[in-house]
C-alpha cells in the first residue's frame, strides 16, 4: 500500500510513469519521525536510473514536536557550507500524498549509524581516532557557518549572546509545563538552579545542531562521516550547548567516561578549541550538560504523554517515559547536591 503510494508520488515528482519502487522497509532510529528506506528506478533521457532514498514521515505522536520544513531547509543550507548531510530532494508539508507531512532525502549506503555498531563492531576499532577527529571537525564547521549569509536567520536569534542560556531554559521549561504528567521535583529544582547559575555569555551566536552526538551520524569503516542526521532541534545559540550535549552521559554509551564513546574529555576539548577557535569554558559546559540532561528528560516525558494519551503504542515511548530516574541522578550530580 505505502509502496504503491510512494511510487505514485515519485511519478509526479520525476515526471515518469515508469518509476518502480522496491525494497521498502521501515528502519529503526529517528524516534521523532517514521523513517523508511526504499529503492527507485526510472528512465531519464532514455537511460535507466536507480537510486536509494530515505523518507521521513511525521508520526502520529513523537518524542519531539518539530517542523520538518525547518529541518529540510537547514540541511539544504549546511550542505552548501561543506557539512556532510544527505541530499534533500522533496518536502511535503501536508498529508496529500502519504496522509502526513514528510520529506525525501538521499540514502547514503555502506554506512552505520547505530552506536552499538559504531562503538562495538571490531571493524570500527582501528578508525576510532579518525572518527573522533572528524566528529569534532564537523561540529566546528557547523559552528563556523555564517547563518545570516546562509539564509538561516528565520531560525530566530536569541536577543544577544547573554540571552542564549535563558532562552533554552525557557524553551525546555515550557515543554515540561506542557508535557509532564507527574510532579518532577528534580527537574524543577534543576531549572531553578540553572537560573541562578547562568553561564558566561556565548562567545558568538552560532548555528546549534542541538542533537550532535554518536548515533546521529553515518560513518563508514574508513572512519569517515558521510552524513550528519537529525536536525529537528536546530536553532541559533551558544556553541557550548552542542559541545556539552555531545558530552552528556547517555551519549557516552559504553558506560565509561569517554565522550561519545570516542575520546577522552580533554582531547575533545582540545580538538574542538583548535578546530573552532572557541574556548571551552568548564563552567559553561557544566551548565549546558545540566540543561542537556533536563532537555533529554523533557523529551522522554513528551513521549510518555503521547503514550499515556493513546497517540502512540510505541514500546520505546513507554520504556523511555518510565526511565528518567538515572537522568535525575546525573542532574543532581551536576548540581553538586
Amino acid at each position, binding site marked *: 500500500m505505502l509502496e504503491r503510494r510512494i511510487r505514485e508520488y515519485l511519478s509526479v515528482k520525476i515526471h515518469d510513469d515508469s518509476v518502480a519502487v522496491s525494497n521498502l*522497509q*521501515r*528502519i*529503526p*532510529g529517528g524516534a521523532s519521525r517514521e523513517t523508511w528506506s526504499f529503492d527507485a528506478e526510472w528512465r531519464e533521457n532514455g537511460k535507466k536510473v536507480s537510486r536509494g532514498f530515505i523518507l521521513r514521515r511525521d508520526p502520529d505522536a513523537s518524542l519531539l514536536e518539530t517542523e520538518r520544513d525547518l529541518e529540510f531547509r537547514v540541511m539544504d543550507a549546511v550542505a552548501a557550507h561543506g557539512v556532510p548531510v544527505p541530499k534533500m530532494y522533496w518536502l511535503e508539508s501536508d498529508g496529500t500524498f502519504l496522509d502526513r507531512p514528510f520529506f525525501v532525502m538521499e540514502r547514503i549506503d555502506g554506512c552505520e549509524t547505530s*552506536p*552499538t555498531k559504531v*562503538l*562495538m563492531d571490531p571493524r570500527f576499532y582501528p578508525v576510532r581516532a579518525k572518527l573522533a577527529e572528524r566528529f569534532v571537525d564537523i561540529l566546528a564547521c557547523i559552528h563556523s557557518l555564517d547563518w545570516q549569509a546562509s539564509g538561516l536567520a528565520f531560525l530566530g536569534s536569541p536577543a544577544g549572546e547573554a540571552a542564549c542560556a535563558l532562552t533554552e531554559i525557557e524553551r525546555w521549561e515550557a515543554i515540561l509545563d506542557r508535557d509532564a504528567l*507527574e*510532579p*518532577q*521535583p*528534580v527537574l*524543577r*529544582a534543576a531549572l*531553578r*538552579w540553572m537560573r*541562578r547559575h547562568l553561564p558566561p555569555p556565548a562567545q558568538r551566536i552560532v548555528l546549534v545542531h542541538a542533537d550532535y552526538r554518536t548515533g546521529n551520524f553515518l560513518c563508514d569503516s574508513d572512519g569517515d562521516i558521510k552524513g550528519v542526521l537529525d536536525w529537528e532541534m536546530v536553532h541559533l545559540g551558544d556553541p557550548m550547548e552542542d559541545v556539552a550535549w555531545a558530552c552528556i*552521559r*547517555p*551519549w*557516552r*554509551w*559504553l*558506560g565509561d567516561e569517554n565522550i561519545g564513546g570516542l575520546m577522552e574529555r580533554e582531547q575533545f576539548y582540545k580538538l574542538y578549541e583548535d578546530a573552532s577557535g572557541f574556548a571551552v569554558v568548564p563552567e559553561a559546559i557544566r551548565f549546558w550538560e545540566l540543561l542537556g540532561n533536563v532537555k*533529554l528528560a523533557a523529551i*522522554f516525558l513528551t513521549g510518555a504523554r503521547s503514550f499515556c494519551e493513546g497517540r502512540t503504542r510505541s*514500546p*520505546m515511548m*513507554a*520504556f*523511555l517515559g*518510565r*526511565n*528518567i*530516574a*538515572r*537522568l*535525575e*541522578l546525573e542532574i*543532581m550530580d551536576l548540581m553538586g*547536591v
Partner: protein
Amino acid sequence: MRPNAVESLRAAQAALADVIAPELASAFALDSAQTVQMLLESLASEWDTAAETLSRDNDTLRSLLSAAGHALRGASAGNESLGSVVSEIEQRLGDGGQTSLVISDLASRNSSLRATLESVLVVLEDVTGRAGCEKIDEVRSKIYEHLGEVATRGWSFWDVSSFRGRIAALQSSGAGR
C-alpha cells in the same frame, strides 16, 4: 504453587528472545522486539517490591515535608512564597496517611506528596546558602539524598546500548554453536 508475575514476565522475555525474534526479518521489527525486552526487564525488576517501595517512599516524603515545614516556618515571616509553601505542606500532611496497598493508590499518594516536594524544593533552591538558613540547607540535603536513592533504583537510558550489545553477543554466540 504457580508461576508468579516476575516468572511470567521472564517467560514472555524468553519466548521473545528464543522464538519470536529469530523469525523476524526486518531491522525495525527486531529493534522493537529488543525494546519490548527492555521494557519487560524494567517491569520485572520493580514488580515484586513495588508496593513496599512506594509505601516506604511515602513515609519518607511525609517525614521530609514535615521537617521542611518546621525549617521554613522559622524563615517564612514576611516572605509570601515561603508562607505559601508552608501552608501547602500543612494541607498535604493534613490529608492523612495511606491505608490502601493497591499500587495505583500508593502511586497516587506518592504523586501528591512529590507535588508538594516539588514546590518545597523550588523554594529551597532560592534560599539555600543564605546566612541563617542552616536548618533549611540541612533539610534540602536530606531531600536530595532521598531523591538520589529513588533515582538510583531506575534503569538508565544508557544501559540500552550495553543491553543491546549483550543480546547481539548472545545471539551471535547462539548462531555459532
